[in-house]
């Protein structure tokens, strides 16, 4: 069944078409041509043909609703986002919700659909870099007068908000930033108050 329809795969190094008996190779197997050792785990999806798309059904009577994007096609579902009626061609199922192409595009651009949110800022890292990097140079040490409060601001700004990151969601970097930035501010406070104290007392 599935294995009978598996296509021959090529060695990714030399391009030699490996016969189907090489798949799935669970144990390391050498390529007959270039001798490079490989493991190839093949799954039933490799033999599965892509499901054909469905063309919208033609609208036959006036009593039926038509697709918003194809007025001659019969509407089959309402978009879960905007409520427009769409035909089976325009119906896109994302996370179990039926969405029209326009909302899909908007969701992709504005990242309102969670599945399309594929980039997040690493504010904890940015804060940490602001706190740590200036300390490595003499000029940077003076910059800590500004970067330490900025790093502290990032920590307080992002501390309560839930992390948008999918992995590495801990607060270790925030804590580290907090300690370094507070230490830098304490040093600056000691310098400033020390010099003021010498001047006035």
């Amino acid at each position, binding site marked *: 069944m*599935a294995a009978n329809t598996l296509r021959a795969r090529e060695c990714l190094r030399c391009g030699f078409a490996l016969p189907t008996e090489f798949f799935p190779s669970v144990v390391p197997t050498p390529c007959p041509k270039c001798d490079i*050792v490989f*493991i190839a785990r*093949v*799954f*039933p999806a490799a033999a599965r043909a*892509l499901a054909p798309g469905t063309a919208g059904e033609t609208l036959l009577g006036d009593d039926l609703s038509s697709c918003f994007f194809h007025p001659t096609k019969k509407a089959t579902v309402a978009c879960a986002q905007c409520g427009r009626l769409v035909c089976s061609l325009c119906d896109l199922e994302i996370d179990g919700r039926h969405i029209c192409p326009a909302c899909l595009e908007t969701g992709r651009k504005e990242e309102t659909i969670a599945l399309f949110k594929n980039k997040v800022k690493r504010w904890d890292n940015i804060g940490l870099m602001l706190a740590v990097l200036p300390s490595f140079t003499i000029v940077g040490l003076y910059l800590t007068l500004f970067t330490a409060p900025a790093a502290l601001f990032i920590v307080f700004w992002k501390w309560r908000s839930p992390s948008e990151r999918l*992995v590495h969601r801990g607060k270790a970097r925030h804590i580290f930033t907090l300690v370094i930035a507070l230490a830098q501010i304490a040093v600056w406070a000691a310098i400033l108050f020390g010099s003021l104290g010498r001047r006035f007392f």
Partner: protein
Amino acid sequence: METPPPVPYRKLPGRTPTLRFGSVAVPQSSLWLGPDHLLKVEDTPTQQSYKRFEYRDIQEIFLQRTPRQLYLTIWFMVPVLLGSLLVYFSSEPGLQYFFIGALVLPFIGFIAWNYIASPTCDGYLRTAVGLEFLPSFSRWRPSARAVDLLAAEIERVQGVVAPT
């Protein structure tokens, strides 16, 4: 927008090699097992980006050995040889210790680590859309372990290919 509850992810073994050329600019990549998909995470200092591969769509995982381990050894041998020559030709004992400590010993350590860390490899994942390079599959042993864990998840969803 309401924040969805966090998806429990489990990290797969393997990490992007730090000694790959240009790796300072190349994002660090890692793979995470989700409940119904594999998550490829790419980390730069300021941003984290994601690619999801549904278990039901993965057709093949391909892992092949590469000669990178040998090339790395050759590169590490250069400072060892250079340091050895400098030690041989320098007359000052202090300078000899410096060359041994700064060039010879650290790079002998790198060569040893390079062999302990198992052979190098490249990993790929194939879907109906195309072939995806997996930078975190860089050493054979952890990558093979990761492939086993990933294959178990995929087979849980798709079943097993019948033997020919």
